C-alpha cells in the first residue's frame, strides 16, 4: 500500500495499526461507500468520481479521520451527523457501523464506550431467534445486514453462526431505532416484503435487551433463559411481546368448559395428540402437566378441521367411558369450528412459532404416525410440534428445527 504524504510525519508505531485497519476495510463489500463516507467526513465533499474513489488512500483517510475526531465519541457523533444528512441514511448507518467496528484499535477508548454486550446475552438472543419458525428468513436478513450477501441455500444457512451475526449487527447499529431503520430499508428491497417484515420485527424484539443496556435494565428486559431440562418449561414464562388476540383462546376454553368436563376434554385431546389415555398414574400426571390451553393450541397447529373432525371422534370412541369421551369430542368440535373459520391461512405457522417460543425447544412429535400437515406452507414445514413432555414417552419423536 502506498502511504500518503501526510502519513510520513506520523510515528512508526502508529503505522501498523493504520495499515491493518486500511487493509481490513479494503476487504469490505461496501468499500466504495466506506470511502465515500470517509471522504465526506474528512473533506465535506461528496465524492462520486469512480476513478478517484479507487485511487484514494484509505490510510490517509484514516489519519485524517483520527485528526478530525480524536475520540471515539467525536467520531461517532461525526458519523451520525453525516449519515443523517444523506438520502440513503439506512444503508450508510451500516457503513458507519462497519467503520466504527474496524477503527476500534485506533481509538483506545472505543471498547469501553461501545460496551458490546455479554456473550451470554448474544447466545440467548441467538437461541430465541433460532427457535423461531421464520428462523431461515431471520438468518437471511441478518446476513444481508452484516455481510451484504444474500444466501438462499438452506444448507449454507444452517452453517451460519447466529451468535456471530447478532454480535456483528449489534456492533453496527448504535441504537434500536437505527437497527429498525436499517432492517426496514433492507426489507423494502426484497420481494417477500410481508414475510421479511415479520422476520425484521422478530429481530428488533430479540435485540431489545442489547439496547436496554444503556438504561441499566438489561436483566429486566432480558427474555427468560430457556431451560431445556425436563419439566422446566412450566416455570418459564412466555417471552412474547404483545400476544395478539388471535392467540387468545379464553373464549374457546370457556365454550368447552361450559358444555363438557374440562378433565374429559383434556383426556380426549391428549389421546389425539399423544397416546390413548388408559387412566394410568403416569398418564394422569402427563395430562396435568399440560394445560387445556396448551393442548388446544397444539391441536389447532397440527390439524386441519377436516382431519380433526374425523380423528377426534375416532380416538374418543376407543377410550374408556367412550360415551362421555365422544360427548367431550363433540363439544370440542362444535367450539373449534367457528374458530377455524376465522383462522388466517398462516395461523398454524404462527401458532407453531408461539408454541415454540412459549414452551421452549423440547418438542415431541404429536402424532408421528400421521404425516405432518401444514397449511402455513413455506418455511415452517420442518417445525416441531411443541408439546412439552416432562415424562419420557415411547413415541418421543425426532427433534426438528
Amino acid at each position, binding site marked *: 500500500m502506498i502511504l500518503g504524504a501526510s502519513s510520513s510525519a506520523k510515528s512508526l508505531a502508529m503505522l501498523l495499526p493504520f495499515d491493518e485497519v486500511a487493509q481490513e476495510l479494503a476487504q469490505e463489500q461496501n468499500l466504495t461507500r466506506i470511502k465515500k463516507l470517509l471522504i465526506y467526513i474528512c473533506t465535506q465533499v461528496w465524492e462520486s468520481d469512480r476513478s478517484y474513489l479507487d485511487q484514494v488512500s484509505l490510510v490517509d483517510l484514516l489519519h485524517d479521520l483520527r485528526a478530525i475526531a480524536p475520540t471515539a465519541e467525536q467520531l461517532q457523533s461525526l458519523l451520525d451527523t453525516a449519515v443523517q444528512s444523506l438520502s440513503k441514511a439506512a444503508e450508510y448507518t451500516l457503513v458507519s457501523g462497519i467503520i466504527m467496528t474496524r477503527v476500534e484499535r485506533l481509538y483506545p477508548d472505543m471498547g469501553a464506550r461501545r460496551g458490546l454486550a455479554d456473550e451470554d446475552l448474544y447466545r440467548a438472543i441467538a437461541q430465541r431467534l433460532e427457535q423461531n419458525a421464520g428462523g431461515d428468513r431471520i438468518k437471511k436478513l441478518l446476513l444481508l445486514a452484516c455481510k451484504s450477501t444474500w444466501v438462499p441455500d438452506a444448507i449454507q444457512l444452517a452453517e451460519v453462526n447466529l451468535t456471530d451475526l447478532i454480535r456483528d449487527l449489534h456492533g453496527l447499529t448504535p441504537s434500536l431505532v437505527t437497527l429498525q431503520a436499517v432492517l426496514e430499508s433492507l426489507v423494502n428491497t426484497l420481494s417477500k416484503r410481508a414475510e421479511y417484515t415479520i422476520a425484521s420485527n422478530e429481530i428488533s424484539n430479540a435485540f431489545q435487551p442489547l439496547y436496554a443496556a444503556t*438504561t441499566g*435494565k438489561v436483566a429486566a428486559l432480558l427474555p427468560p433463559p430457556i431451560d431445556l431440562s425436563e419439566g422446566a418449561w412450566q416455570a418459564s414464562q*412466555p417471552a412474547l411481546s404483545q400476544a395478539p388476540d388471535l392467540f387468545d383462546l379464553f373464549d374457546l*376454553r*370457556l365454550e368447552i368448559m361450559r358444555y363438557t*368436563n374440562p378433565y374429559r376434554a383434556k383426556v380426549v385431546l391428549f389421546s389425539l395428540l399423544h397416546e390413548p389415555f388408559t387412566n394410568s398414574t403416569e398418564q394422569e400426571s402427563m395430562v396435568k402437566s399440560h394445560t*387445556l390451553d396448551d393442548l388446544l393450541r397444539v391441536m389447532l397447529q397440527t390439524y386441519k378441521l377436516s382431519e380433526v373432525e374425523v380423528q377426534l371422534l375416532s380416538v374418543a370412541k376407543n377410550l374408556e*367411558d367412550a360415551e362421555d369421551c365422544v360427548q367431550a369430542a363433540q363439544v370440542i368440535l362444535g367450539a373449534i369450528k367457528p374458530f377455524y373459520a376465522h383462522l388466517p391461512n398462516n395461523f398454524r405457522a404462527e401458532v407453531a412459532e408461539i408454541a415454540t417460543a412459549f414452551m421452549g425447544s423440547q418438542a415431541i412429535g404429536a402424532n408421528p404416525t400421521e404425516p405432518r400437515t401444514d397449511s402455513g406452507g413455506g418455511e415452517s414445514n420442518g417445525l416441531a410440534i411443541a408439546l412439552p413432555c416432562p415424562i419420557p414417552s415411547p413415541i418421543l419423536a425426532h427433534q426438528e428445527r
Partner: protein
Amino acid sequence: MQAKEILELYGAGKTDFKGEKLTGANLAKADFIGINLTSADLHSANLVWAYLNRAKLGKANLAAAKLSGANLSQADLVGANLQDADLHGTTLQGADLRSANLTLANLQDANLIEADLRNTNLAGANLTGACLRGANLREENQGYSVNLRGATLRKADLRGANLTGADLAKVDLRGANLSEATLRGADLRGADLSEANLKGAFLTEANLTCASLRGANLMNAKIERANLMEVDLAAANLQGAILPDAKLGKAHLVRANLTACNLARADLSRANLWEAILREANLTDAYLARANLTDADLTGASLIRAEMSSANLTGATLRGAMMPDGRIRE
C-alpha cells in the same frame, strides 16, 4: 361406612348421608347427584369422575380428596375443607364455596364459572388455566374476603370477575384474562400481571406498588387514584386508560403506549417514560419531577400547569403539545 354400602343405599333411593364417615373410600365415577353429605368425613376419598351435581357438602371434610374430573356444579360446599384436594379439571360451575378452605388445592383447568368464592381461602392454590368468569370473589367486609396469597392464576380466565378489595399480593397472574374485572381497592402489591389482559378493568384505588405489568393490555382501564409506585409497565398498552391522581412515582413506563390517556394530576416523578407514546395524553397538573421523557412522543398532549422543570425531554416530540404555560408548540 364402606363405599359399597353407600353406593347400594343411594341406589335404593336414600340421599341423606349427613356426617357419615367415608375416609379414603373409593367412590370413583359414582353417581351421587343431589346427595346430602353435609359434615361427612371424606378425607382422602377417591371421587374422580364422580357426579356430585347439586350435592350438599357443607362443612364436609374433603381434605386431600381426589376430585379430578368430578362434577360439582351447583354443589353446596359452604365451609367445606378442601385443603390439598385435587380438583384438576373439576366442574364447580355455580358451586357455593363460601368460607371453604382450599389452601394448596389443585384447581388447574377447573370450571369455576359463576362460583361463589367469597371468604374462601385459596392461599397457595394452583388455579392455572381455571375459568372464573362471573365468579364472586368480592370482599364483603374487613375479615370476610377471599385469600389468594401465593396462589397461581397463570392464564386464568377472570373476565368480569368481582375482586373488589381482594388480597392478590404477589399472586402470579401472568397472561390472565382480567378484562372488565372489578379490582377496585384490590391489593396487587408485587403481583405478576405480565402479558395479562386488563382491558376495561376497574382498578380504582387499587394498590399495584412494585407489580409487574410488562406487556399487559390496560386499554380503557379505570385506574383513578391507584397506587402504582415503582410499577413495571414497560411496553404495556394503556391507550385511553383513565389514571387521574394515580401515583406513578418511579414507575417504569419504557415504550408504554399512553395514547389519549388521562393522567391529570398524576404523580410521575422519577418515572421512566423513555420512548413512551403519550400522544393526545392529558397531563394537566401532572407532576413530572425528574421524569425521563427521552424520545417520548408527546404530540398533541396537554401539559398545562404540569411541573416538568426537571424532566428530561431529550429527543421528545412535542409537536402540537400544550405546554405548562399554555403555549402550543409548533
